[in-house]
């Protein structure tokens, strides 16, 4: 069952400048993106800085007002919800942020941070709430005496556990994890990844897992979408994507990951150039300037996200030459 469906989502931000501070341009942060997430499953959203992956996360939670497109949650259109129905929605859809330093209020104790979601949604008596807070702390592997402490008394990994406890408090159906483990050291990162996978198996939540690290994305995801400059360039089941990447950008991304094995050193630079400015992306295929396979048609027509004939229909790619590229 689909829990979330996004259709042709667009998120444009105005840019102001000049003497009269008028709008002089628009940034196409998200430029027509469609995907869906199954209940209890994880969709990984991967891409480099500025590709629009975090903007999507925020638009889904309606922290931004989408410019165009439609977002539905459990079949209900939530694109323009407001007031109490929006608040109700947010008990079903929660977020875990990258920086646990910035997302926890430094002046509140951990107990009151964790109690807040219950208060906002008028759940239980004070006693029940406090018991629930203790249960949450225990579930994420934090000692019960954390209740009286402040966020600065904890390490990054522990703070991320508190952020997770807050996100799961109201038993949401979908959690958006925005670079949730990127700021953590390797040995702590694996603890948090294990916790997220366990919680999903236990509570059956769906995750939208946003990250730039392809190894982490592969570890947690069932399905993966690769973004480049505001668009999804490839979307597929996890194994299909890593075994048979079809878009030249996905191929380059996978080839760029440093492998912790000195016998498999790279002997070439996989991709030249840099991501163009989102203010002025190349029209049609956004990747054309960096692509080794680009031809005239790539600068004349926008490639559509579609599956290629004779292969898995759930593996879709936006490239005119998908399936016809020989691996270099």
């Amino acid at each position, binding site marked *: 069952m689909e829990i979330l469906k996004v259709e042709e989502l667009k998120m444009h931000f105005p840019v102001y400048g000049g003497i009269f501070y008028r709008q002089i341009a628009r940034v196409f942060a998200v430029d027509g993106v469609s995907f869906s997430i199954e209940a209890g499953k994880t969709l990984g959203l991967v891409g480099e*800085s500025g590709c629009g992956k975090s903007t999507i996360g925020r638009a889904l939670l309606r922290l931004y007002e989408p410019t165009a497109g439609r977002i539905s949650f459990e079949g209900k259109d939530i694109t323009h919800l407001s007031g109490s129905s929006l608040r109700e929605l947010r008990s079903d859809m929660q977020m875990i942020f990258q920086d646990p330093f910035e997302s926890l209020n430094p002046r509140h104790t951990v107990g009151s941070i964790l109690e807040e979601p219950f208060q906002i949604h008028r759940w239980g008596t004070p006693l029940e709430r406090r018991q629930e807070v203790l249960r949450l702390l225990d579930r994420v592997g934090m000692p019960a005496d954390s209740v009286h402490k402040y966020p600065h008394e904890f390490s990054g990994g522990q703070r991320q556990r508190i952020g997770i406890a807050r996100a799961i408090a109201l038993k949401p159906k979908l959690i958006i994890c925005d670079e949730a483990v990127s700021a953590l050291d390797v040995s702590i990162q694996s603890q948090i990844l294990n916790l997220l996978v366990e919680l999903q198996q236990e509570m059956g939540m769906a995750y939208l897992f946003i990250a730039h690290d*392809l190894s982490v994305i*592969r*570890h947690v*995801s069932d399905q993966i979408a690769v973004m480049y400059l505001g668009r999804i360039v490839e979307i597929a089941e996890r194994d299909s994507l890593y075994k048979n990447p079809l878009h030249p950008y996905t191929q380059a991304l996978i080839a*760029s*990951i*440093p492998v912790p094995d000195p016998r498999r050193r790279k002997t070439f*630079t*996989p991709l030249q150039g840099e991501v163009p400015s989102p203010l002025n992306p190349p029209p049609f295929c956004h990747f054309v300037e960096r692509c080794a396979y680009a031809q005239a048609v790539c600068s004349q027509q926008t490639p559509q996200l579609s599956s290629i004939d004779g292969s898995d229909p759930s593996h879709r790619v936006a490239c005119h030459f998908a399936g016809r590229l020989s691996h270099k």
Partner: protein
Amino acid sequence: MTEALLEVKHLATEFITEQGVARALDDISFHINAGETLGIVGESGCGKSVTSLSIMRLLPRPAGSIVSGEVLLQGQDLTRLAPEEMHHIRGNRIAMIFQEPMTALNPVYRVERQLGETLVLHNPQMSKDEIRAASIRMLKRVGIPAPERRMQEYPHQLSGGMRQRVMIAIALLCEPEILIADEPTTALDVTIQAQILQLLKDLQQETGMAIIFITHDLGVIAEVCDRVLVMYSGRIIEQAEIHTLFDTPLHPYTRGLMNAIPRLDKPAKQVLSTIPGMVPSLFDTPPGCRFQNRCEYAQPQCRATTPPLEGDSDQHQVRCFRFRELMH
């Protein structure tokens, strides 16, 4: 055996803070030969950056100071040099690049002035035209397209990858014998990281400089280093030739680190192995082995005395009493 280019002997560095004295480095000994790439790997707070700042004598004053040990650059002890003499070593013989070039570059000077400044400082006899020509040559060498135009730009006009290239250009202007690279690719996207790593390898081939490469990423270590030091809580806990380290890691911490990374060549969604607990605070380090509280092999001896850094050969040394048992 030829004399090492740089030899660090029993270096100890302390920071005096409000909470007391923190021994950030304890008994650090290693060497690096000309043309070699030495990796230093470890998690936040292990002392890898303090090691580089101690070598460069750039510790924040007055809090940080070297309390004992020697840093020998071809036999000359840098810890005893007067500040003016140290100026001639920095930049000329040992140069450094940092993680975030935006903080290392001066935001109000054009690229031209930042390069020129370094040249003037170390070569006062150079004419303006010579400086300009040398700067442009250097920018070209680090792969900056249209260097004449880039010379007139400010750091904020450059992308992250370009800024890191400018930093590398400044560092290499005076042809140093040693380049210390402190997490130079951590803030960059993977495809740009691959470009910068390749650039550093190419430049090393051309100039024969030694590189000390500091990172938390074992994948990057495997990609570029000849030899590796693993640090934990202010000490070197293992040191080995690159293939030896990845084939037979001996210290329980090194093994834990390697197993904790999600890898593309392992099945997804499996429980990652973790290292329980956290790094001890530098204000409250336990006597004996610093890893004892997280180590599954710890025994009474580990809590009483500090294990020496020892091994069966110069190629592989480890700070663990039980390494011979763990070899098999």
